């Protein structure tokens, strides 16, 4: 009986304490911070309950905004979004960087999910303006309505471009099989996985969202390449592209990497939004096969290149006689951007041999071109560890 009484008293005391402290916080905080900024629309639960101190320290803090912890540390304390991850292949950059506030307002919002804007699309535009600003004659309705999250997952995904699932499964959620079949009457094959090889899921100046740049044979008719019986092979592509492409394939390192047709791994045989008929941005095309390289770069403390350089700037994407299909040796490629290359004190070049290997000393003898955890993308610590590999008496 005594135990029950004690429990009731303690519970009551805790309740009274929490109510009074919340009420006190509300009263004290709002004496300086305008109440209107914390009410109306969708309000974050701790704010609505007046529990400002759940996230903020009233006196001192190491973090900006007097936050008790880092932003992501605080958010993830309650919102276990990591359970969405389950070893997901892709993480949205703001999530990875712990920058929850890039998309969410921590206090109140007009829209659902405490998003900073009314619609998800408007939030996405804040970063993806360049890609999404295009105006189309014909737009896909979710894109037009700014409902990016109809197709894309904002935190984690296993599919490229953070798609919720892979086309055609994703497309089928709104476009039933019968409708797809009706739209592709007289086609040599039943439409398969490649919805995006012809259609732009955001918009286009062509009807049915057919991408803007058409491959000439596709424009003229399917039977230019398809006979409905055998798949279109690399050899068939080379029949037209022998002069421009074949020489790149007669190399020691090339991209002949698909049993049926290596060309269509990267290029759309039908339609694209790019002159070179690539299936998407350069990185997006390379990533599915070279995911480990991309991850290494993304995980590096000092990634390279930092700017918007593309794979194509250093790599000859069809083939070359250099390692990793580089456009030149480990000096020439770097010198395209780094003007000081070869003009500094450490000797490099054909006549200078790396004592570890006997190979000509180049930039990649010391630097790793996709980035490392060491300053200047060095392979080891430049203060000592790297140097003593060659300079033993250093």
């Amino acid at each position, binding site marked *: 009986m005594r135990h029950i009484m004690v429990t009731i008293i303690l519970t009551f005391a805790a309740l009274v304490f929490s109510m009074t402290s919340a009420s006190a916080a509300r009263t004290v905080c709002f004496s300086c911070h305008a109440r209107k900024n914390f009410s109306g629309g969708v309000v974050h639960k701790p704010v609505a309950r007046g529990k400002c101190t759940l996230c903020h320290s009233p006196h001192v803090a190491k973090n900006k905004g007097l936050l008790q912890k880092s932003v992501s540390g605080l958010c993830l304390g309650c919102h276990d979004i990591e359970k969405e991850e389950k070893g997901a292949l892709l993480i949205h950059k703001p999530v990875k960087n712990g920058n929850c506030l890039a998309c969410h307002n921590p206090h109140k919002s007009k829209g659902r999910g405490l998003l900073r804007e009314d619609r998800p699309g408007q939030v996405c535009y804040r970063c993806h303006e360049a890609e999404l600003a295009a105006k189309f004659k014909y737009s896909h309705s979710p894109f037009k309505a700014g409902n990016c999250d109809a197709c894309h997952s904002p935190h984690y995904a296993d599919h490229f471009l953070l798609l919720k699932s892979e086309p055609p499964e994703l497309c089928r959620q709104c476009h039933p099989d019968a409708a797809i079949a009706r739209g592709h009457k007289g086609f040599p094959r039943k439409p398969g996985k490649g919805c995006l090889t012809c259609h732009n899921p955001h918009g286009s100046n062509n009807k049915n969202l057919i991408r803007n740049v058409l491959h000439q044979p596709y424009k003229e008719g399917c039977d230019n390449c398809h006979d409905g019986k055998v798949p279109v*092979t*690399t*050899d068939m592509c*080379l029949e037209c592209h022998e002069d421009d492409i074949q020489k790149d*394939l*007669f*190399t*020691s390192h*090339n991209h*002949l*990497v*698909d*049993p049926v047709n*290596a060309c269509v791994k990267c290029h759309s045989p039908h339609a694209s939004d790019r002159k070179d008929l690539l299936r998407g941005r350069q990185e997006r095309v390379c990533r599915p*096969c070279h995911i*480990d*390289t991309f991850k*290494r770069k993304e995980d590096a403390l000092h990634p390279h290149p930092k700017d918007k350089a593309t794979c194509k700037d250093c790599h000859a994407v069809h083939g070359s*006689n*250099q*390692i*990793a299909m580089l456009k030149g040796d480990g000096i020439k490629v770097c010198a395209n951007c780094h003007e000081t290359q070869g003009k500094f004190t450490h000797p490099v070049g054909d*006549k200078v*041999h*790396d004592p*570890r*290997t*006997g*190979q*000509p000393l180049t930039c990649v*003898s010391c630097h790793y071109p996709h980035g490392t955890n060491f300053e200047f993308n060095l*392979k080891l610590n430049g203060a000592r560890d790297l140097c003593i*590999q060659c300079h033993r008496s250093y």
Partner: protein
Amino acid sequence: MKGSLLIRTTRVILWALLISLALTVDAGATAWQWQFSLKAPIINKDSKPMLMPAGLFIDPVRKLYYVADTENNRLVSFTDKGEFKNMFDAGKRLNSPYDLIREKGGVLWVVEAGRNSLTRIDLKSRKMESKSLEWNGDIVFPHRLAEYDNAFYILDKKSGDVLCYSNKLKQKTRYMVKGSRGFADFKVRKDGIWGIERLNGTVYHLGHNGKLINKIIPKGEMSFPYALEIGPAGLIYIVDRHAGTINVFDQAGRFKYRFLGAGQVRGRLYYPEELMFDPWGRLCVVDSGNGRVEVFSR
């Protein structure tokens, strides 16, 4: 008294477990010792080190290693002790030699990536003949080359299939696995063809009749599996090109151990291309980025 006996017994068991664990996990990895590197000597200012060597052939009769020195357009030979023996550029006519074999009669067959050909070089008559290969009218891109039982086995880079030709270059058998990405590398053995699938590292064992015998999915993380070798005890050795490691699996795909790593110093790899056991039980790794062939033995 009973308590102390129990403690002593537990201690002994724990030590035994610890030692056996250490032996199983690390024994394989630590057993491999670097023996020598095959490197072209720098004799004078015009000497060139090997640049991007890509292929290796071992002649057990003449006890020689032959290396395709791809960027220098030459072939380099070494003794079984790792000493430099000779260089050969066919009168500066070779164009990106990528792989090679030497027949008993002194005829070299070289995959020339720059010509997309299989080139026959008769060393006695000094004749060189480049042959463009086709399979049912389709152009073939020779990548890896092996000889077994008087037939040539060629990995076609384009299809990823292994194509078997007679020694007169007549089409014989096509080795492929439907639905796969094609092979990145292969080896021919008495029990059939072993191939490693591009990107995912799945190993396929096919009979000499082309029928699939076994599909082995290696259970261990690899970033870019690229080449394979089958060890004398049947273990599968896989080169992870980006990690610079050799990963060893049993034929059930169970991970056994891993050794080496990425880098430039001795025993480290940079862009390894090929893996091969020599007739003397040594494991040879064509370390393309470091311009050498690293030879290890137990």
